């Protein structure tokens, strides 16, 4: 027989607030991973696309003179850092899609009508999921680069790469989640992702150094957040990690490793404060 005595279930709840937040966040994160395991095509596509780029672009410039690029590296070595960042960026840019689909199909209402201890659980689960996926995809690119002979960073370099990617992924995930709550539907969100993805890549130092670019593009590239992520990672691959060294020779001046990380950090925190009121309002 169906019982309806609510006093029964109150005794059978997790009591502690922190336990409740952990329970709801892990359940929501688990749901996203179940979706991924049963529909892994997006994960593989996210890895496959930059891999193809790596193979094709590296082949395209394979016969370029050895002093063609700064630091006397091959184009494949140069390209690796750009594609690692591009992979993380693309993955994070898609963070809003599951939330948008939940909004459109009414699943978000199921979450909103539940007495969640913190509405942030919905956002945190998305961030955990997308960060894990983006890092996995980026490390797959790193492993392939290593197999192709383009090198592997030192332990310090690896740590720098992880920190840089985390900052970038948090910032872009914040933008994507914000868009998912502002835009009217997934068509509009996909359109923005589609428009932003490649131009942001081309207007960075992922494919070519600033010195190769016309002045106007050099300005854009040296202001592009992707560049502030690419150059520290490039350094982690090719030199000993020294954050005081100049990584970007921008038209407005030299930018060292610390400045790159500081800019990414400020961007992430700034976006957090920008998006937070919107998410609070939408998830109230």
């Amino acid at each position: 027989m169906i019982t309806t005595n609510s006093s029964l279930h109150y005794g059978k709840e997790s009591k502690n607030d922190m336990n409740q937040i952990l329970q709801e966040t892990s359940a929501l994160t688990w749901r996203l991973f179940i979706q991924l395991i049963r529909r892994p095509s997006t994960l593989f596509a996210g890895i496959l696309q930059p891999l193809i780029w790596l193979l094709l672009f590296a082949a395209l410039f394979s016969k370029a003179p050895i002093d063609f690029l700064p630091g006397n590296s091959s184009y494949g070595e140069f390209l690796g850092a750009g594609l690692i960042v591009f992979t993380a960026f693309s993955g994070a840019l898609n963070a809003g899609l599951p939330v948008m689909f939940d909004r459109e199909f009414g699943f978000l209402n199921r979450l909103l009508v539940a007495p969640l201890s913190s509405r942030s659980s919905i956002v945190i689960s998305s961030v955990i999921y997308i960060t894990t996926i983006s890092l996995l995809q980026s490390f797959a690119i790193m492993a392939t680069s290593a197999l192709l002979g383009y090198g592997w960073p030192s332990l310090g370099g690896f740590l720098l790469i992880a920190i840089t990617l985390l900052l970038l992924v948090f910032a872009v995930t914040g933008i994507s989640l914000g868009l998912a709550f502002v835009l009217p539907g997934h068509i509009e969100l996909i359109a923005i992702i589609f428009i932003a993805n490649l131009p942001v890549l081309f207007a960075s130092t992922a494919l070519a150094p600033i010195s190769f670019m016309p002045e106007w593009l050099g300005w854009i590239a040296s202001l592009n957040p992707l560049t502030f992520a690419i150059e520290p990672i490039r350094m982690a691959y090719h030199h000993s990690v020294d954050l005081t060294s100049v990584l970007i020779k921008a038209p407005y001046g030299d930018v060292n490793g610390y400045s790159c990380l500081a800019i990414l950090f400020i961007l992430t925190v700034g976006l957090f404060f920008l998006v937070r009121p919107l998410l609070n309002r939408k998830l109230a």
Partner: protein
Amino acid sequence: MFFIQLKDLFKSYGPVRALNGLNLKVPKGSLYGLLGPNGAGKSTALRIICTLLEPDSGDVEVAGHNALLQETETRRRLGYVAQEVAIDKILTGRELLQLQGDLYHLNKNYKKERIEELIQRLEMNEWIDRRCGSFSGGMKRRLDLASGLLHEPELLILDEPTVGLDIESRSVIWGLLKELRNNQTTILLSSHYLEEVDELADEMAIIDKGKVIASGKPDDLKKALGGDRVTLRVREFSNELEAESVKKIIKNINGVSNVVVNKKQGYSLNFLVRSNNVISSLTDHLAKENFEVFALSHSRPSLDDVYLQATGKTLMDAELELAGKRDFKLENKKSMR
């Protein structure tokens, strides 16, 4: 004691006014039906009670809590089964229930027991471990109902729970709702199915254009009409002038009351008669004025008659009328978080 109290609720979607001063009191432990055509404001009212939507103005009290200010406390006490079943197609039915249990912070053992209990009660054993994407409408609705009941809410809110369902699923759901009502769960159910409200509801309210136009026990509302319902046509397709002429004749007959011209149904006349004798005298009166009886039906009053009496149209006609006026795209956009 009232479990839900809505006072002067107003809500608009752009130029469309969904609620227009809605007042409602739902007694604790009752199964309360909200009857009205699609677009009358039922779903909007339910979404406001569930804290999914904020009214433009008005007060909402659930179990003594101000639902607009004490949202978490309100959410803890209610289970909501929405009109559009929102399930994750990739998860299995059992996984969805487990997720629901975690959102309500149920502990592991209790959650497992409760899920098993609901699977048995709602006859879901055979398919609960399949992915939700393969479920029929009836299966989805049963799963959704199980989700709403998982945390044993004091209040269950159901928005059109049996729309488009097969007979088996409808019967399972009706049986469960009766059982819950007997166990003192307060149930608020919206429907545009007359027989559903008539069969299940202890008390009900009829909503039209965003406000309550009649409320009480279904039998009392029907009895209050004061007689049997008669529908009369003097011609297959009459006109307004003719219908009004016939109305003048009929309303002067002793024992006839509440005469309404139903424009939507070929200007037929609907009215109440106190006894069968009135019908024979009616035919005589019409003959004297050179009117023939083309069609005449005589029945016990239904909730549709209550609706007709209050609005001058049947529930189905009201739905057809509203269907053309609603902007579903705008409503969806405005109600999306």
